[in-house]
């Protein structure tokens, strides 16, 4: 059996869909963030896979992933800071219950 590109893409697709599902259904902000990480990760894998299969020897996909990871880390850190702050203020991190800042 030959592990062609499709073999890598299908699991990442499933991973992405899981991310979508989680993001849409969860109310807990951290859970949503986790789902977001899943989607991001799925996309990263795609970059790498395409790079590896279609343009071996070049490093664009890899570097893109590298930066994406860095940015994801930054983003997560900041998001969690905000979440903790919100939790301090509202004692709750359910998105559906946080209406004070709306409008």
């Amino acid at each position, binding site marked *: 059996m030959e592990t062609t590109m499709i073999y890598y893409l299908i699991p990442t697709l499933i991973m992405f869909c899981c991310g*979508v599902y989680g*993001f*849409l259904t969860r109310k807990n902000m951290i859970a*949503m963030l986790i789902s977001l990480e899943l989607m991001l990760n799925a996309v990263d894998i795609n970059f790498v896979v395409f790079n590896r299969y279609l343009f071996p020897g070049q490093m664009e996909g890899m570097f893109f992933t590298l930066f994406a990871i860095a940015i994801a880390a930054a983003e997560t850190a900041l998001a969690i800071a905000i979440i903790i702050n919100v939790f301090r203020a509202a004692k709750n991190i359910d*998105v*559906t219950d946080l209406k004070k*800042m*709306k*409008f």
Partner: protein
Amino acid sequence: MAIPLCMFLILGLLGMKMSHKLAGILGTAGMGVTLVLAYFTAFTYFFSGSPDFVSSEGQRLQYIVFNVDWLQFYDNLVIRLGFLLDPISALLLVVITTISFMVHLYSNGYMRDHHGVYEHGFQRFYAFLSLFSFSMLGLVVATNIFQMYIFWELVGASSYLLIGFYYVKPSAVSASKKAFIVTRFADLGFLIGILILSFYTGTFNFTDFTSAPVADGVYGVSLDTAQGIKNLIAGSEAPIFMGASVLTWALVLIFMGGMGKSAMLPLHIWLPDAMEGPTPVSALIHAATMVVAGVYLVARLFPLYLMEHSAMVIITVVGAVTAFYAAMVACTQIDIKRVLAFSTISQIAFMMVSLGVADPNFHEGLGYMASMFHLFTHAMFKALLFLGAGALIHAIGSNDYTEMHGLRKYMPITHVTFLIGCLAIAGIIPFSGFFSKDEILSACFGNSWIAYLWMSMVAALTAFYMFRLYFLIFWWKEHPVRQGHHTPHDQPWTMTLPLVILAAIATVAGLIPFGNFVSWNGEPYDLFGHFDWSIAAVSLLVAVVAILVAAKMYMKENPLPAKMKNAMPTLWDWCHHRFYWDELYMFITHKIIFNGICRPIAWFDRHIIDGTMDGFAYVTNKASYAIRGLQSGSIQMYVWIYLIGALALGAITAVCIL
């Protein structure tokens, strides 16, 4: 010569800060100086015989003393402030300054109570009086119609201020308001008339309307100029408007201004109410000077009016109806100032009729002369009557003559002077009213016998109601001296002196050879030479009969008046309520204008116009609220929407590709 005008302004402004007595003395003194100057001016004009004033043929000329540009509209249309001296302005200068001086003097006594304490606002009173005198003088010496309009407004305003002098009294306030608004409405007509006239002729100057230049600044009245104006308008693009020529429209509209100021019939309602002002004011403004401004205006433009027969007819009819109406009403009033007010309306209407029937072909415009003559004599005797009434009111403390009766013993001077006034207005020889009224009747006779009969009837009514007033005040029964009231007595010299002087003038003024001085074209006319004794005899007879009837009814207390009243209840009622004109106006102003126009407009503005604007805001607001759910901040909702969009796009792409 025109320095007094400036003096009035200064006095008016400074008067506010002075002590009571000083203000009174200064005001009177200022007026006295003006009086002397005016007499000097008039004397110079009439008797000096200078070529500026009298032409070689003996025609009296119009002399422009000075004329400064005040406001230039375009090249040839300029408002100027100037001083035009001609027979009628000289005449009015004399009348105004005389009456004004008398009133200033009289007010020194009138505007205090019995203990000599000055009334509140005494200086203000003198300031306003000076303002009025200034404006009135400015009005009569106006060189152009717009200057006249300017001062016309100013006399209106000063009249407003003086009527509302007792500003704490609501009735005075509403009377002053009414006077101003009614005359303002009339002035609207005047203004439009001026606009029409000036548009077609391109000038405001009286001299351009009615006279031909004789020398620099000197003009002689000329019918040709007026004819030229008529031709000019007839030759313009649209000489006819709604069935009448534009000139007729202009003249009638200008006459409307005169109607307002002179209280002619539909616009007369303000004058009786104006009696709310202090009595000297009534004497000065609402009897002798301001109210004749309308007559003066028509006289000023007389040659133009001659050009338009229909305008003259309108003047005659309005005057005749007003004269009769006012005389009828005067017979039933019980407030002495109101009787005098209606009598004023009636007498001014006499002047108007006289102007209306004047015809250069009949005794060289006798009506014009008669009108001016009557203006002069009427000013004197009516001021006398008003000042006398003032003295009575001051003594009794009421305007209502049911509280007076039998005063002849208590106030002899007032009694005699008042009697002279009554005799003068009734037209008894040799008092002044006899001559002037007789001229008017002659002029009417020259026009048509209907006018003559009508005006004679009014003259009879005049004699009747004046003597009704006289008898009810001074006879009827003994004066009921009530507890707590001191007995009425004659007033201090400041008040009686004017009465005596005016009585003297009223007695002899009729003998002045008036025609020598004033006539429509300035050419002297021998009034006495043309005196029609038959008409005079008839009018005298009529007056005497009317006086006798009045004496019969009111000399002694008797039930006859009450019987008369009961015999004609409707007529009496209507007369007593002044034919319900006030109610009609109240209805029009309050019900129709206020409730029918203003309120709906205000409502419309608040609810429809503003409602539309608010509606825009409301819709915007609602729309924002409606779509703000889309920007809810709920990230899952965003993702949902995004996902649906993306999936739909993907699906469409997929379908399309297949």
